[in-house]
């Protein structure tokens, strides 16, 4: 015992100085303006909130059944692909290729599915206003899953386990559903699972927490979590880079759309982005303005918001959209959380590495941007050291990814 203590003391004496000797990362000086911007990029994770348009949201068995469906190839024509074949869990729920070629070549890059709960718009052009309606899209897309709905209904109803689990979760009998109800219900189950796909605190979040905590105490006493290089990148991000004009808030996205000069030409046409996105939304039977929105109409909340008509309060954003000329060629401002793991980049996958995106912003083609444009973007002409710093900062935005795991016990009565 005594020897053990001695050994421990010796070890401590030998190794502690080594620990002490590692140089502290110093916290750079931030003015109040910068501190406000840093604070605005959190807190993370966001408070979890039920999606009122989806009655299955946050329901345990719906999450498990949705998880099973997400990995189920039967959802596609001839069992060609499941959601997970394009949104691969070990690739941050995307596919790692510029443009996927499922049943036919696609013209948009597969987005990663992190942190999608309660976002205002889905899809690069914001074609959908709920996670469940976005989840229906690939089944209807002929180039993606091209689902044969009557065949699917037959196959799933004949699968006695699935049929039983479906009944237990939704209270509905699979075989009795109309095709639209089947589609919507599957979409809502898939959404319940996808809401659990989240990224945890990144090193940036820990740094931010530390700064916010330290605002009353003396910040420089602590060992900063971000390196000096990463902090220089952060300063560019919230400063001269003006990145937070669009990549703002805890999601590093304002949830809206912008044109940064990425080409809108596709292999065989033009992708009008948000312009067609709004048009699609307006005719979408599955939008929040349609009859499948589970939110109660005219709740007190709705009345408070001045909504005396029959528009559910969670559809007010959709009902107030205006189609503008400038929406032409705008694409969704993507979240930058875990961006180090989601290459290739942009709506058409045209930029292959993170460093290339930094180069893109550094050498921006001003001519290509809207003439009366946002005047927010301009070429940054960063030095090589600044580019490295900005990239280092972007890499610090990755947190551990987690999603609901298999829970077979939930449907034990169905086996």
């Amino acid at each position: 015992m005594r020897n053990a203590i001695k050994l421990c003391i010796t070890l401590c004496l030998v190794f502690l100085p080594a620990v002490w000797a590692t140089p502290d990362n110093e916290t750079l000086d931030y003015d109040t303006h910068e501190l406000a911007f840093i604070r605005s990029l959190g807190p993370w994770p966001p408070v979890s909130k039920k999606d009122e348009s989806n009655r299955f949201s946050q329901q345990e068995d719906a999450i498990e059944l949705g998880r099973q469906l997400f990995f189920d190839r039967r959802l596609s024509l001839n069992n060609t692909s499941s959601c997970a074949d394009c949104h691969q869990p070990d690739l941050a729920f995307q596919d790692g290729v510029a443009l996927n070629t499922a049943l036919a070549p696609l013209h948009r890059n597969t987005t990663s599915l992190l942190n999608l709960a309660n976002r205002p718009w889905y899809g690069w052009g914001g074609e959908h206003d709920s996670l469940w309606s976005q989840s229906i899209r690939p089944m209807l897309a002929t180039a993606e899953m091209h689902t044969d709905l009557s065949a699917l209904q037959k196959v799933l109803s004949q699968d006695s386990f699935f049929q039983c689990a479906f009944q237990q979760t939704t209270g509905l009998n699979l075989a009795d559903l109309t095709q639209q109800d089947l589609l919507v219900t599957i979409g809502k189950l898939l959404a319940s699972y996808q809401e659990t796909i989240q990224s945890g605190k990144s090193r940036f979040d820990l740094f931010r927490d530390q700064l916010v905590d330290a605002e009353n105490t003396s910040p420089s006493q602590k060992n900063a979590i971000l390196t000096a290089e990463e902090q220089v990148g952060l300063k560019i991000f919230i400063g001269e880079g003006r990145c937070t004009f669009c990549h703002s808030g805890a999601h590093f996205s304002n949830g809206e759309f912008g044109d940064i000069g990425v080409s809108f030409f596709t292999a065989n046409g033009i992708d009008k982005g948000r312009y067609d996105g709004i048009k699609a939304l307006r005719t979408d039977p599955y939008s929040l303005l349609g009859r499948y929105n589970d939110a109660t109409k005219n709740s007190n909340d709705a009345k408070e918001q001045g909504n005396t008509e029959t528009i559910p309060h969670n559809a007010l954003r959709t009902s107030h959209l205006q189609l503008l000329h400038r929406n032409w060629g705008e694409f969704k401002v993507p979240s930058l959380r875990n961006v180090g793991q989601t290459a290739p980049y942009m709506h058409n996958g045209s930029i292959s590495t993170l460093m290339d995106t930094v180069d893109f912003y550094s050498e921006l083609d001003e001519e290509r941007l809207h003439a009366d444009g946002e005047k927010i973007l301009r070429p940054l002409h960063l030095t090589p050291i600044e580019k490295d710093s900005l990239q280092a900062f972007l890499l610090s935005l990755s947190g551990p990814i987690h999603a609901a795991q298999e829970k077979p016990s939930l449907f034990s009565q169905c086996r």
Partner: protein
Amino acid sequence: MPWTQLSRAVFLRAVLWLLSLVVTNTVMACTLPAGSDINRQEGEFLISVQFDKQPLELGALHSIQAIICYASGQAYTGEIKADAIMPAHNHGMNYQPSFTMTSPGHYTGTGFVFHMPGLWRLRLTLQSDNGKQLIEHDFVL
């Protein structure tokens, strides 16, 4: 003081008191609460505007409560048109707000989403017999 004089004084006071009651009551028909986000007179209008919450949240859907009176004390019951722009960047919101009147002079407007940090200008347009009145309010997000 002789009786007649006294009663005349009392009578006059009573008349004054009654008159003042009538006057305050007409004003009461449309008055502005104190301490709202915007509280001012613009042309023939008295305007009070209150956002649903402060500080405003970037990219979130906001609504506002507006009370609009004529300086004469009558309630405004006409239409309100609204938008918001970022003067520095020469663009506005991606949404078209709408207003509904909840009682004479009282309005609720929704559909406000301020999607970028910086200076925003809220613009309300009222319509009276004397023409259009523009009300502008600058704020920083």
